């Protein structure tokens, strides 16, 4: 029986940059994308530390590849030099997008002691009015301008819910996976692929033919698709200040997707996904583009594109009954003898409806009683403890 004590304990904060236990064993050395050119490799911490670059957007596997020798051996001296240069540049350095993404508080200054004040006209204040306030550092990072680079994960920040857009993303994933397979680039099927928004229209023009025997073939500019999947060709988005603009471009707009959908028809949906490598590549790409994750237990039901679409296009479950009624059961809302309230109608609501609550409020105030709730009595304490509260 294995014992945990034998398991490798994770090394410290920074050595984890070299540790990549989930990498496929066939990982190859790729030249670093633009990321490495802007920040020296030694400045980077553990794996997703390159997130500090704006160029880096939801693209992980290649970044985890071993760093080329020429880039990884940036010495402390060169690092110091660069910092020095930044300081010399002065104002320009402040505008540098990578140097000051997290702004630390200024150095502490100490006021003179009362008995050592050199200014003879100094009179100590008696009240706090008009004095500078000195706050704690509790929410330093939440204040405006102190934190400018958010974490970006593999999935997009917003889930795509439009069925047509999802269909376009699935088609893109299928085309890319089949193109890689036909080009013999099997290793890349399990990796993360770059998002090339600029070539999306050309990619959509590629057509998929499914033969009677299930064979799938692509016609169109397949070489362009393959070129876009080259990890070196990650475009430079350094000029973009936010990642949201990038997100909008990673998938088609709803109108365009609808147009394309009508052109494609349904024939391509018969393309088989029974090969586990292709299925993995397609579901991974769909997750990257739309944020729709095919759950593990649903994987066995995905055999072709049609079944995949059935899984990922399913609308999300409404969170509340009210939401469900308003979105899907409009017939109930239309009924003349039924009224739908967004929340439970309590005794207080009834009093308010007939205008009696004002009187009650006055009487409660007179007696110094709480207007809402039960005063000292807390709500369910176990519930808040379960949610991580006190």
């Amino acid at each position: 029986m294995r014992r945990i004590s034998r398991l490798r304990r994770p090394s410290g904060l920074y050595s984890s940059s070299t540790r990549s236990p989930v990498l496929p064993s066939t990982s190859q050395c790729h030249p670093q994308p633009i990321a490495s050119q802007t920040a020296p490799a030694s400045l980077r911490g553990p794996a997703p530390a390159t997130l500090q670059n704006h160029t880096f957007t939801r693209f992980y596997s290649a970044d985890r590849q071993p760093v080329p020798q020429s880039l990884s051996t940036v010495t402390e001296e060169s690092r110091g030099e660069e910092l020095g240069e930044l300081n010399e540049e002065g104002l320009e350095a402040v505008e540098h997008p990578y140097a000051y993404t997290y702004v630390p508080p200024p150095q502490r200054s100490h006021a003179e002691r009362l008995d050592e004040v050199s200014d003879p006209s100094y009179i100590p204040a008696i009240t706090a009015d008009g004095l500078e306030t000195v706050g704690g550092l509790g929410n330093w990072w939440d204040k405006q301008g102190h934190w400018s680079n958010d974490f970006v994960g593999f999935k997009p920040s917003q889930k795509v819910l439009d069925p047509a857009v999802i269909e376009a993303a699935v088609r893109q994933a299928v085309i890319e996976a089949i193109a890689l397979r036909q080009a013999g680039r099997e290793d890349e099927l399990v990796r993360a692929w770059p998002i090339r928004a600029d070539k999306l229209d050309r990619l959509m023009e590629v057509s998929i033919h499914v033969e009677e025997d299930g064979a799938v073939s692509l016609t169109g500019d397949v070489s362009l698709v393959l070129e876009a999947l080259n990890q070196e060709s990650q475009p430079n988005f350094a000029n973009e200040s936010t990642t949201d603009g990038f997100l909008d471009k990673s998938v088609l707009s709803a109108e365009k997707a609808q147009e394309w959908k009508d052109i494609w028809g349904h024939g391509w949906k018969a393309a088989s996904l029974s090969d586990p490598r292709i299925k993995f590549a397609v579901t991974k790409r769909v997750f990257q583009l739309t944020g729709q994750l095919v759950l593990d237990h649903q994987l066995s039901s995905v055999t072709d594109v049609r079944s995949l679409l059935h899984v990922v296009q399913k609308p999300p479950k409404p969170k509340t009954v009210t939401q469900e009624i308003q979105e899907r059961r409009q017939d109930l809302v239309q009924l003349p003898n039924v009224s739908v309230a967004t929340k439970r109608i309590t005794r207080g609501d009834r009093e308010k409806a007939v205008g009696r609550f004002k009187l009650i409020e006055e009487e409660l105030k007179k007696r110094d009683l709480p207007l809402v709730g039960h005063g000292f009595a807390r709500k369910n304490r176990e519930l808040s403890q379960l949610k991580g509260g006190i």
Partner: protein
Amino acid sequence: MAGKGIRGLNEALRSLSLSSQTCREAASLRIPPSNFTRSMATEAPLPNITTSVNTSAADASWRPASTVPVTIFDFPSFEPVRLESWSAKHLHVPLRRDILHLAVVYEGDKTRQGTASTKTRWEVAGSHRKMRPQKGTGRARLGSRQSPMLRGGGKPFGPKPRDFATRLNRKVYDLAWRTALSYRYRRGELVVCGDGALELPLPGEFARLVGAGELREEELRRGFKAKWARQVLDANGWGRSCGRSTFIATGYRDNLFEAMGEVPNYGRALDLEDVDVKDLLETGRLVIERDALLEMLDRHQSDLVTRVFVANAGLPKGPESGKVLVG
């Protein structure tokens, strides 16, 4: 010729199988009922309430898979990197709420401290002198000042330290573990990350600031980790708005555990040794290291593996999990 030969073989095989024999033929093969005993009751024909199972339909209808796919994710990017096959006996056990209830109650009982203690009249300190004469005062009879009816006296039948632990069969408890994990798996709330991958990498910028001595205050460093953890969890849909997450690692991971300690509203991080069935059922999802999950299953499969010595060491000792399918 070949077709005829195969047909002949088929016929021979069919004649061997039991199902091919007609009832009459089968009846002739049975041992005839004995005539020595006879029921005293009036014998009525059996009601026709049972239906025979159509064997071919039964074969086709339900053939559960012996393995289930598990995606291994990268942490913290949430990128799927690999697909593995795990045993259905580990991660696809049917839900049994009763067994989960038994396990949670068993754990609750076991963790009760049971240190409540009161003093009986014999343990309360003080003199046992009679407070007042037995008779003649006009008041009630009274012995010593430790009497339970007096203030400061002993407590009759009060709590004494004791063990509240109850018993649960090991196999039931182990099944509860796998039931809880299977429940999470089927709901898509089991996120398996790579071996030992559950460390929260911080931005390189942070390391530079700490190295340059710009973040001297502990508060700043903790605040930074807390904010970073919040961002990671929110970006992956694991945060407060998504029902919190439980992170389970095989050991203490400095950054992750420290950061999660700062943001209890976003989830909790647990060492494998501290996990029990109730923890598996609590928050919105489990984010767990692959080796932690394997170890967990290895420890809780007493109902699957035999303890009997098997001479052939080549035989699998239990259900096998963690075989790579893709990646």
